[in-house]
């Protein structure tokens, strides 16, 4: 009897396990193996070399690029967290009727019905030297010369990230907030807490899992991005994934693989650190 049930369990686990094995473990293992290969202009040569890692880690370009990417991640994370939390708070606590909550929540998702790339590119004519933003400011007499930093700059990159990804912060935080027992808030008020104290000592701690999940989304997406950086910085800034793109486009797969492994480790480390701060599973 016991043997049969073990069988059934294995059978039930098998599909997911197989999918992970085929589409996660095998590809990552391949990337790790290739990262030690040698290469020349036309081909990759099986070998066991540390040269790819040496070239990568000893180059100041790599460090500068990683710093740049981490900087993008942190700034984007901080801004989306503040905006995301505020939006979720409004939806969860200020809007009383469930119907309106759902309607407004759906409104938040409407931009997601269009393509990511289109939402990104539409910033370009808006922010350009002769774009809407500059024209408006100049006609209002606020500025004399067009603001150059608006487009093809780190500002533009972060702005686009925030625009594209804030929803990933809103959704999990909103979800966490909806699960907070309202009587806790009443209890806090009865105990004499100000609304700031309630927010800080009751709501925020209870939203931690949502914040953590949103943060993982944002950080992993931004760290892995290359399109936004390339388009919005006008090719003026680099990101880690862009480095990989450049290497791959020149058939330098092993170099790109080594970079991918390093980035993977960095992201895993970041996510692990977040998980240590917040035990998501316990709180879900």
């Amino acid at each position: 009897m016991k043997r049969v049930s073990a069988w059934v369990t294995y059978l039930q686990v098998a599909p997911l396990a197989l999918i992970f094995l085929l589409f996660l473990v095998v590809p990552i293992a391949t990337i790790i193996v290739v990262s030690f290969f040698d290469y020349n202009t036309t081909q990759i040569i099986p070998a066991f070399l540390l040269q790819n890692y040496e070239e990568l880690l000893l180059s100041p370009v790599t460090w500068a690029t990683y710093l740049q990417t981490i900087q993008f991640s942190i700034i984007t994370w901080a801004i989306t967290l503040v905006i995301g939390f505020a939006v979720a708070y409004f939806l969860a606590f200020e809007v009383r009727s469930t119907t309106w909550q759902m309607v407004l929540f759906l409104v938040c998702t409407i931009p997601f019905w269009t393509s990511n790339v289109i939402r990104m590119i539409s910033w370009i004519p808006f922010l350009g030297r002769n774009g809407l933003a500059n024209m408006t400011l100049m006609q209002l007499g606020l500025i004399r010369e067009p603001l150059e930093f608006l487009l093809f700059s780190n500002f533009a990159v972060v702005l686009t990230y925030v625009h594209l990804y804030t929803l990933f912060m809103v959704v999990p935080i909103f979800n966490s907030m909806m699960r907070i027992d309202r009587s806790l808030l009443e209890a806090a008020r009865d105990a004499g807490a100000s609304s700031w104290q309630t927010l800080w000592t009751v709501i925020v701690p209870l939203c931690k899992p949502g914040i953590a999940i949103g943060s993982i989304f944002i950080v992993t997406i931004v760290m892995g991005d290359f399109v936004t950086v390339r388009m919005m910085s006008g090719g003026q800034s680099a990101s880690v994934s862009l480095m990989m793109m450049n290497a791959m486009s020149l058939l330098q797969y092993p170099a790109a693989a080594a970079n991918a492994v390093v980035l993977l480790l960095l992201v895993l480390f970041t996510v692990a650190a977040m998980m240590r701060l917040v035990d998501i599973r316990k709180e879900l």
Partner: protein
Amino acid sequence: MASNRKFGRRSVLKGTAGITGAAIGSGAITGFPVIWAQNNKNIVLRQCGTGVSAINEIAEKCKADLGITLQMTALDSDAVVQRVVTQPNSFDIGDIEYWMIKKVFPGGNLQAMDVKKIKLFDKIVPIFTTGKLKPDSVIAQGTAPSTVSFVEGQGSTKFAKSPTQWFTIVPTIYNADTLGIRPDLVGRKIENWKDILDPKFKGKTSILNIPSIGIMDAAMICESAGIVKYGDKGNMTKAEIDKTIDFLIKTKKDGQFRAFWKTFDESVNLMASGEVVIQSMWSPAVSAVRGKGVPCVYQPLKEGYRAWGGGLSLAKHLQGAQLDAAYDYINWYLSGWVGAFLNRQGYYSAVLETAKANMTPDEWGFWMEGKPAQGDIKNPQGQVVEKAGAVRDGGSFYERMGAVACWNAVMDEDRYMVQKWNSFIAA
């Protein structure tokens, strides 16, 4: 059957050359190709290449004339190289550029073609065979087409120094590139590559971010400004690369560049919106900017042009009927209709006389001879691109292709160059 077919092909070519001289356009040709269509109607050729030559009209016309179904995939140059090297069975015709040949041909996924099967081989512009546009021309720096046009024998991947029977690619499309400017916004005469460094244009310039091409534009600029003296711009030493990139980084830090573009449409938008007033550009991009009613000039410069060229190559796995069809396609490509189509876009075609037969004297005069247009000049889609009286920037074919300073190239220090280029973009 096979001999019938050869007869058919030859007669069509002879026929079209004569007939189209009188009757311009496509009308006159349609009578003949029925013969071809019988043989090729089930043939599908998958062509992968850069966007520049993945033109739907060509695929449609090919279907109508030859019966061959062309499936075109347009990729950026780097992706083409990748595809040819890593997925040899995913394409039949590789539409590649000359600089790529050095990278992809030694990989062994392409087969050299027999020049005896190329009907108009003798008529191909000599840049691609002997390397000399005119007998007294000097071969330009970089990966000059003639240096990678031939291999030593069938199945060989070793490039021959002089013409042999085995051709690596058949040239289809090429041009001489220079800087594009906004004449209404630059406010001064632009004569040299170094003019892009003028402090007046701070934050209003751009160069392209495709390392193998961008480095050449950078070299033209550095040489013009007297920053670096190159032995061969197309094959720099490490020291030359260092100097060039260091200078670029300094220029970037000073805020001279507005952006670095990678695709055709980016370059058009940068120029049309006035984000930049002087930048590296491709000829059709200049037309596209003008098409929006924005003035734009493809400015000839004293130091000369940076040239590029592409052509059709055959995948290794092609054989039998498919291989025959591929040769049919190549012969058709050179037979005039496509040549005229490309010339009307501002590119150049490989066999000039057949293209000429498919163009009006006014079109030929404007695009190829540098003469003022007599009437409106239309692009292949029928839109007016130039009014009567206009003269092509840079003049005639011989003036432009005769002033090539270097060809797009792959360097021996390619790996090092790309690392340095990345540091420039990351700086």
